[in-house]
């Protein structure tokens, strides 16, 4: 199975950001905070929010195709449980194989399950970002801090200079 990343953009200027929300508490806010940073400081274009049907399994094919069609890069969050950490990593791999640079965000308690899923999907060593656990119980200010902390890693995985 294919284990090469999609081509990286040189800059985010004008690129449409797909935010794939897996429905977990605070996922929307975390994604929107990251997108806001990418727009304000890196010139990224429109951010479009999409919602998964169920967090525990990979994104449905139709939604995947729609996002690939409409967006230049994707950020997906938040894999802060057993099934959804694995599914978030599987989603990232599926987007990369469809040619869209993607940052999967799990929480750092679920590195092992994310890595195990990458192996199941034939992409061992797939790079994703593990945000500090927890996420679900945080306040709005704390989510903003998590987003700011994530930013350098998001840019690194997207292959863009910070």
């Amino acid at each position, binding site marked *: 199975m294919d284990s090469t990343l999609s081509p990286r953009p040189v800059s985010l200027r004008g690129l449409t950001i797909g935010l794939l*929300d897996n*429905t*977990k*508490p*605070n*996922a*929307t*806010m975390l994604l929107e905070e990251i997108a806001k940073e990418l727009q304000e400081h890196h010139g990224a274009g429109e951010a479009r929010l999409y*919602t998964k049907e*169920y*967090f*525990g*399994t*990979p994104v449905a094919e139709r939604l995947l195709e729609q996002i690939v069609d409409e967006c230049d890069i994707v950020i997906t969050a938040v894999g802060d*449980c*057993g*099934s*959804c*950490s*694995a*599914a978030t990593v*599987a989603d990232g791999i599926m987007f990369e194989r469809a040619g869209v640079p993607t940052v999967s965000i799990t929480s750092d308690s*679920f590195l*092992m*399950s994310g890595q*195990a*899923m990458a192996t*199941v*999907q034939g992409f061992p060593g797939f790079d994703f970002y593990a945000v500090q656990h927890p996420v*679900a119980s945080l*306040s*709005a200010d704390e*989510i903003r801090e998590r987003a700011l902390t994530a930013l350098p890693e998001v840019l690194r995985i997207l292959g863009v200079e910070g």
Partner: protein
Amino acid sequence: MTTTTLAEATMPGAEAEAEADQLREVLEHYWEHDWTDGLPVVPVTEGYLARFLATVERDPEEILFTITHLNRHLTVRLAAINAAMAGCRPEYFPVVLAAWEAIAKEPHPARGIWQSTTGTAPFLVVNGPVRGEIGLNSQGNIFGSGFRANATIGRAIRLGLINAFGLHPHKLDQATQGTPAKYSACIAENEEQSPWAPLHTDYGFDASESVVTAYVIRSVMHIEARHTMDPEQLALDFVDTIRRTGSLIHEYTSALLVLVPEHADVFASAGWSKDDLRNFIFEHATRPRSELVAVGKDALSHKTRWRLSSDHPDSMPDTAAASDTPDTVRVLSHPTSIQIMVAGANNAGVSAVVEVFTLNPPRVQPFSYSRIGAAGH
């Protein structure tokens, strides 16, 4: 007659050493491949496997259960290998096979619930004549150890999950704590000492048929109630456990009541049917909103609809908030969220509430079943 000195008996010869090495080599082989639940497994050869496959008229390559997002299937052959490894007798295999069919009908296992932090376990209930035929225990120590059929049929499922689907703890299985039921959980109904018709007749089967019912469970909590012959008092004692806030991930919960014969008789003697009991519990399994506020579970998250505080940035009102009685919050979505069976010894008023895992949206019937000995597809 030969005589052996003590020294000869305790000092193993070369032959005994070789035998011990061989035994260890076989046993360790399974651990080295992570093919166990931590306990030793029975070594399986093709010849031994054939005895299990001979008990069912099924194609060994028939797929019983698939977890699509893991790219893995469980075939009849893989189910048989794991049943043999678990220590089943070949004649238990039709029960194991029906159990997998029931599990495959459950919505959560195929959607990754056994990778989940909640740490649920498969839980099997067996009804019908097969109980006596293979020696399934239904009377006394039903959740405990000591009975080969119960112990190994439940374990056959666990080994299948580990070996066919790669659900190893700390890896794809991210259970935060799990439950002891993850080793094995298979009970049988004590139909002989129940005042009511057996569980599987509730689904339309004849009592003479044998059926496996599969649940996805978390906790088994015991109810000490040796104090009353009043059905309402007894039912309210169950309600107190069923409506505990700790079980609430979403708005609602579900439970399997495993009543001992003595408790079942309290209800039956007062003229209560199983439906009367579940309706009573449904009506009383509520909480004042203030109690949910006190534990920070008085609202829902927008998308997952998980319970959280109305102060949380992702919160929205729950269903009860829009009802005529916004300050009384139901924890059961349907009367059938309560399932009722009889098991255990007829020696004390000690029953159990088995909490059935309930994601959103809640199901009317929170279980699946399969007839033992049914033809293949």
